[in-house]
Structure formats: structure tokens, C-alpha cells
């Protein structure tokens, strides 16, 4: 009997999971959770129980993951537990191109090295020094150019740090700062990748095969940097599969426009990183942007304040209204959101949302700048449609994602049947060479 497959979409704030029974050729269990309220572990444990209930063998199950989870890292400096071994005179060289970008490594954890002092005692004293700065240090990026160091010297250094129990990230082109950034990002996001993979292995056993969607399809071996564009790449492949040049994607945590054009360099928050991917354009409004009265007492959304946690009021706990909350009535009627935000069905939450908007509306002083919650909602929708028109040069665009029907217009329509991440993932995995036997 073929083993079941698990499809997992892991967003920044929500996860959707489905169990695909290959014998019946159908998804037999599907569930989405809002991560600030229900952990991924909890969702995986529910899936494991369901496998038993359905009498499906969970041993050696294949898990197909599409993720946007790594976008969480985009606002942070990384590399707090990473040491860098680099040639003297090249300390923080990757960061000189643009001082406004985020850092990928801690300066105090740098080990500078000259080819004459590659010996174990020097390396040990340096390792002791950086360990004093951060006792949790467990990874090392080694970027030593061939022009300055022999391969024997590099091997010696790699062996030393391997023996010391550090995970090694070797930069293949140390003279190339973009490559160095990529290696540092691989190291900086290793913890997050390990955390996800560990949760999956713990839930379904050590033999679990995990495939992440990277640039060209699902892969079990990849660089962590590839995971940053996993969902965009998936979306681009979906467009390709449907012979579309562009599309717009809407879910509870992102509204974006994507063209089916590959790009070789990713302009990341940490600088240029050479990685094949598909670029996206986020619409001006972020669903988790906070709604507030600005300095003109006008109801508007704050582009700089993205509240991933505790999330929107519709999720049940938050008190700060977000852009997503403007659409609470539409979300209530949306099958995906009704499941994700179960509190939406409660009357007291409805009153709470109405009260919040009533207070905001009454706080506006100027009549010419007054905007009601409903007007703001309609304007956001119209602004998105206008941006889509502009980005697609007037062509009709297919809307995609769990909230596609909330933003549809007569010109821009979603696909006919309702969107399901697990179903899309399984369909892509099958089209992408089929599921492993």
C-alpha cells in the first residue's frame, strides 16, 4: 500500500496541512491553524493522530513543504551564534556595499586569520575567545580565499572546527561578497530550518522524508537561502503550469503580485544574494498593518507597524485593529478564514470589532479627511485593483490564494473552486515528478 503524503504550507502566521491518501487519491484530512494561537507541533500531532485514525502508516511518510515562514527573519539582524573565519583585512567585508542593510554576523565573533598563523593553538585560543562572547555559538562560516590560503590550510581549519563540534558553512567563492552573504544567510537561517524539520521528524518519525519547495520544485537537499522565496517560487510555477504571465495572491498575511519572470539576484534585506528565484511586488497595504488615527487624526494604516503577534482582532485575542479586521464580514463568509479564526462566529467578537471601528471613526476631526471603516475597506480594494491593472499593463489577472474571493473584481477573478494549500501542494508534487513511492 503506498504511503500517505503530507502537504504543509507554513506561513509566517498560519499553517495549512493536509493528509493525502494515495490509495484513494484524495486528501482525507485538512486543517489550518493560526500560529500565534496553535503551535505547529500541535497541528502535526493532530495530523499524526488522524493518520492512526485513518489506519494509514506514518512511518517514512513524505512531507511536502511550501513556506513563507522565513519571511519572519527579514526584519532581523542574523548571525548571533555564528563565528566567521576570514582573512585579516576583510572583517565585515560583506556589509560595506550599503550601510543601511541588516547585518548577517556579529563583529565580536569574527576570527581573523593570516596564512602564517594557521595552527591549532591559535585556532583554539580564538575559539575560546569567541565562546566567551557567546557560549551558545554552534556554527562557523569559513571564507578564506584561495589566493591567500592553500587548500591544506583550509582543510586544517575545517577539521579543527568540525572536531570542536561546530557546524561548518564553507563559502565556495570567498572573494565574492554576494556569495559570502549567501553563506552567512545559510548559516543564519539554519536554526529556523532545523526547528521546522525537527518538528516534522518528531511528529512522523526519523524516517520522514521532507521536501521543501525551492526554485525549481520540491527538493530534499538545498541551501537555506532558497527557502526565503519558497512560496513565491511555488506561485510562479503555478502560473507557469496555467500558462499565465502574472497573478495576484491574497491570504491573511500577504497581498502580492507576481510575474512569471525568473531573476538571478535577490535584493534581500541583508544585501544582494545570488539565488535563482521569482520576484514579487507586495501591494502598498499589508494585511497586518495597524489601523490608527495618524497625526492628521485621519484613519489610516501604518505601513511600518506590522503586528504578526498577537495578530488581528478577528483571531480573538488582539485589541489593536489591523487592515485584515476591516474585512471581518467577508472573512466570516470565507471557508478558510471561518476555520482559521473560529472566534469570528461569536457575537461578542463582532461587537468588539464594531466598537473599535466606531471609536476610530469618531476620533477623526477633519471632515474632508474623514473616512469610515467601510470606505477605507473599499478604497483598499480599489487601490489593489488599480495596482494590479498598472502592474499587469491593463491585462486581466488571475487571483489566487485563500482570500482571492475577498478581493476579486469583475475583471480579476479567482479560480473557480475554493483555494486549498494542501491540494495545490499535492497537485504540484505530482506534476513535479510524482510522489515518491
Amino acid at each position, binding site marked *: 500500500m503506498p504511503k500517505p503524503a503530507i502537504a504543509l504550507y507554513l506561513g509566517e502566521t498560519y499553517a495549512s496541512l493536509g493528509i493525502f491518501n494515495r490509495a484513494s487519491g484524495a486528501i482525507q484530512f485538512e486543517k489550518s491553524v493560526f500560529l500565534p494561537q496553535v503551535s505547529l507541533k500541535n497541528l502535526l500531532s493532530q495530523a499524526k493522530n488522524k493518520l492512526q485514525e485513518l489506519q494509514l502508516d506514518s512511518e517514512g511518510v513524505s512531507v511536502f513543504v511550501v513556506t513563507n515562514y522565513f519571511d519572519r527573519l527579514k526584519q532581523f539582524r542574523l548571525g548571533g551564534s555564528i563565528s566567521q573565519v576570514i582573512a585579516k583585512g576583510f572583517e565585515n567585508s560583506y556589509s*560595506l556595499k550599503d550601510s*543601511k542593510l541588516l547585518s548577517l554576523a556579529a563583529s565580536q565573533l569574527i576570527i581573523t586569520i593570516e596564512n602564517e598563523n594557521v595552527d591549532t593553538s591559535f585556532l583554539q585560543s580564538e575559539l575560546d575567545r569567541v565562546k566567551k562572547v557567546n557560549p551558545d555559538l554552534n556554527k562557523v562560516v569559513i571564507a578564506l580565499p584561495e589566493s591567500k590560503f592553500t587548500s591544506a590550510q583550509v582543510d586544517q581549519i575545517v577539521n579543527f572546527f568540525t572536531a570542536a563540534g561546530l557546524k561548518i558553512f564553507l563559502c565556495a567563492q570567498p572573494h565574492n*561578497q554576494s556569495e559570502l552573504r549567501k553563506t552567512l544567510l545559510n548559516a543564519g537561517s539554519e536554526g529556523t530550518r532545523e526547528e521546522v524539520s525537527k518538528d516534522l521528524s518528531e511528529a512522523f518519525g526519523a524516517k520522514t522524508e521532507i521536501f521543501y519547495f525551492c526554485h525549481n520544485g520540491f527538493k530534499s537537499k538545498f541551501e537555506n537561502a532558497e527557502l526565503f522565496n519558497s512560496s513565491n517560487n511555488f506561485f510562479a510555477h503555478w502560473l507557469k503550469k496555467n500558462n499565465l504571465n502574472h497573478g495576484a495572491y491574497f491570504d491573511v498575511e500577504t497581498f502580492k503580485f507576481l510575474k512569471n519572470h525568473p531573476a538571478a539576484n535577490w535584493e534581500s534585506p541583508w544585501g*544582494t544574494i545570488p539565488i535563482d528565484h521569482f520576484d514579487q511586488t507586495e501591494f502598498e497595504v499589508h494585511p497586518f498593518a495597524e489601523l490608527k488615527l495618524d497625526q492628521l487624526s485621519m484613519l489610516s494604516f501604518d505601513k511600518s507597524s506590522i503586528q504578526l503577534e498577537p495578530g488581528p482582532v478577528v483571531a480573538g485575542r488582539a485589541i489593536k485593529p489591523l487592515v485584515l479586521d476591516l474585512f471581518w464580514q467577508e472573512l466570516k463568509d470565507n471557508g478558510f478564514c471561518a476555520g482559521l479564526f473560529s472566534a469570528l462566529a461569536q457575537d461578542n467578537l463582532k461587537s468588539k470589532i464594531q466598537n473599535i471601528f466606531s471609536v476610530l471613526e469618531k476620533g477623526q476631526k477633519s471632515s*474632508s*479627511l474623514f473616512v469610515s471603516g467601510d470606505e477605507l475597506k473599499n*478604497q483598499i480594494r480599489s487601490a489593489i485593483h488599480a*495596482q494590479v*491593472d498598472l502592474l499587469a499593463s491593463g491585462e486581466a489577472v488571475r487571483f489566487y490564494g485563500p482570500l482571492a474571493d475577498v478581493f476579486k473584481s469583475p475583471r480579476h477573478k479567482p479560480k473557480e473552486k475554493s483555494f486549498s494549500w494542501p491540494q495545490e501542494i499535492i497537485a504540484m508534487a505530482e506534476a513535479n515528478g510524482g510522489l515518491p513511492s
Partner: protein
Amino acid sequence: MNGLQLKNQFELLTKFFKSCSVVNADGTLLYSKDQGRHSLTTTRLVAFQIVKKYLQPQPLDFFVLNDPENGGFQLTKQIFIAALQPNLFLVWDEDFEAIDFKIPPTPLFDKGVRNEFVWKALVENRPYSPALEVFINQQKAKADALLKMPQFLDSVSANKNQQDWLKVSQEVFNVLFNTKAQSSGEAHFKMAPTQMIKLKLTVEEKQNVKMFVLDMTNTNLATDFHAASHVFESAAVKKIIDFYGFAEFFNQSILDKIKMILPPRSIVSKPHAEGLHNISIQAIASQLCEHLLAQFNNPSRKSHTSFQYSNFLSFKVQSGNSYYNNLITKQCATIDCVEALANSHKIEVKTMRRLENRSHIQFEVKCQEELTLTVDNKYDIESSDIKLKVNGKPQVRGCHKLVKSDLVEISWEF
């Protein structure tokens, strides 16, 4: 339409332009933004007025100019004007570094049809013709994308919507003006004993009229260091707009409240043939305004300090048809040239380090072809924390040819 809808319209119209202005047929500024290194709001208005006066733009016409003595900024900065509708024009600027000749106001497309005579003269038979053709076509495509949304353009160009938008901005101006202090003060920057830029800034409300007055009367006459008045004005206006938070509502209603008094043929009111000093003079304008506005709004009014110019270095490196712009200020640094040239093996990086606040780059030229290093602004070599040396010799403003084995050193401190 309410204020938010009107604002959204202009944001959408200008979404794909970093630095642009929207004007109507009367030349009234409807919206403007400057997100690049330089400020050109007033420059773009001057460019539009010249085109309007001499070339009578019709819908779908498309113009270009760069002449610093005729509505332009500098030779490398191309100003485009697209007539979107009879009552709606978009003016924007983009850099094309290879152009080193003056382009007077020139119609590239007449009612959407390429002017072959002009195209041949301007674009063809140049070493960089293919790149220039791509560049101009890209600019035209940006305007064409907007032309595909006729209903949207109808709405933006509707007289009533434009009048409502100007009224909304007037209201916003009145609110935000009152959030800052009213005062008057002077500051100056002296380059030489007879070369001084002196600004008296007054922020006041008189007879219910709220105004900013920038009086440059005591600025010296121009000798060799000077720029057009719109160059100084654009930078000063930008600083005021940003300081008060007017940017999202910036249009003629607000621009009319900023009055400039400029003596004729002074350092800040005499165009330079190539716009060579524009970057330096904009930095001075911006810093003088920022200093005075900060003084006016300093809670401890007694601790007035004299103006201290904050030095910066702007330079570019040319390799063949590629240009790399670099900027080092006290707050930030963007060095585009080093990674690109090292990856193409044109230079060998000897040192590239940032430790604590000190950054240091040293590289050796490795290629046979000549590289050109151009320092764009007049920066203080002696007392500055920013150093640029070639073979140990500090570099001043101007062009410097780099040949194989030359050693270039750049260092700075935050």
C-alpha cells in the same frame, strides 16, 4: 472623492517613479516626490514651463531635456515629460550617466509617434546607442503603462478632483504647520571670504497667512561656484516638506506657502553650464534649512549652536559603459563600485573591512582598460573623516583616470 482617495490616486500614478512631479495644464503642481539622492521638484516645474511655453505639449507627446541652463539639473540627469491627458502631465528624472552633452527641450514622440529625425540625432551613432535606446524605451514604457488606464487618468485630470485635492492639502498644511514652532533665524556657510551662502529662514503666521520665507539676500555674487535657483529651492523645499511631514499631500497649495527671496546672479541663482556644483549646493541648502528648523524647534531655546557643515563624498567610477555611484555621509555609505569591479576582475581588493565605526577599502586596478574616478562634490579633504586617495594622494573634485596598478584607498568613519 475624499482626501484619502485623492491621495491614493497620486500615489498610484507615481508608483513606479522614484522622483517625479504631476502637473496640470496650468502648470499647477498636483503632487511631487523625490526619493533619489537629489531633489528636483522645482527643477521639474521649470522644465515643464519651458516645454509648455516653447513646445505646446499635446496628449501622448513625450519630451526629454537635460540642459542645466535651460530647466535641467546636470547632463547625466535626464528629465522626461509625458503628456498623459490635456490636463495631466507627468515630469520625472532618471540618470543616464553616459550622456555628456546638452539636450535642449526635445520632442521624442509626437502624439505617440516617434520623431525619427530627433531619434536619429539623439540616440543613434553613439558608442552607447543600444543602452540609450533601451533606457529611453523603458521610460516611455512607464508612461505607456499609465496610458492603459484611461478611466483612472480621467479621474486624476478632472478639474473638480484637482481642486478638491488642492483644498485637502491646504487643510493638511494648516494642521501640520501648527505642530511646529514659529520663529526666524539665520545661518551661513562660507567657502571663501567672499563666497558665502547666507539663509534667513522665517516661519510665521501673519494676518492668517502661514508662510515660510527663505531670504538669501545676503548671499554673495557667483564666481566659479554656483547653481540655478531651482536647484537650491528644490533642496530647501524638500527639507521643509520632510520636516513638517507634508510629503504625502505635497502640491501647489503647500509650495505657494514657501517663499524664496534670491538675489540675481548669486551663488544660489546663477545656473552652471553643466550643473557641476548642484550636488554641493543642494547639500548646503538642505543642511542650512535642517539646522534652522531644528533650532526653532529645540525645546531648550537657549542652546543655539552655530551651523556646522556635515561633510560627505559623492563619487562615481566608470568602466566602459558601466557607471557605479558611491556616496559616503556621516550617517550612511553606499559603495557600488567595489563588489562589481572585483567580481569582473577589473580590480583586486587588498583590504575591505569595517571594524567598529571605521571602514576601510583598498584596491588595486588590474585591468588594461582605463577606469575613470569622478569626485562629484567639493568635500573638505583636510578636516574630513572621509578619505579618498589614489596612490597615496588625496583626490579633489573632478575626473581622475585610473590605470593598471593604481592603488585606490577609501576610508570613512560614522
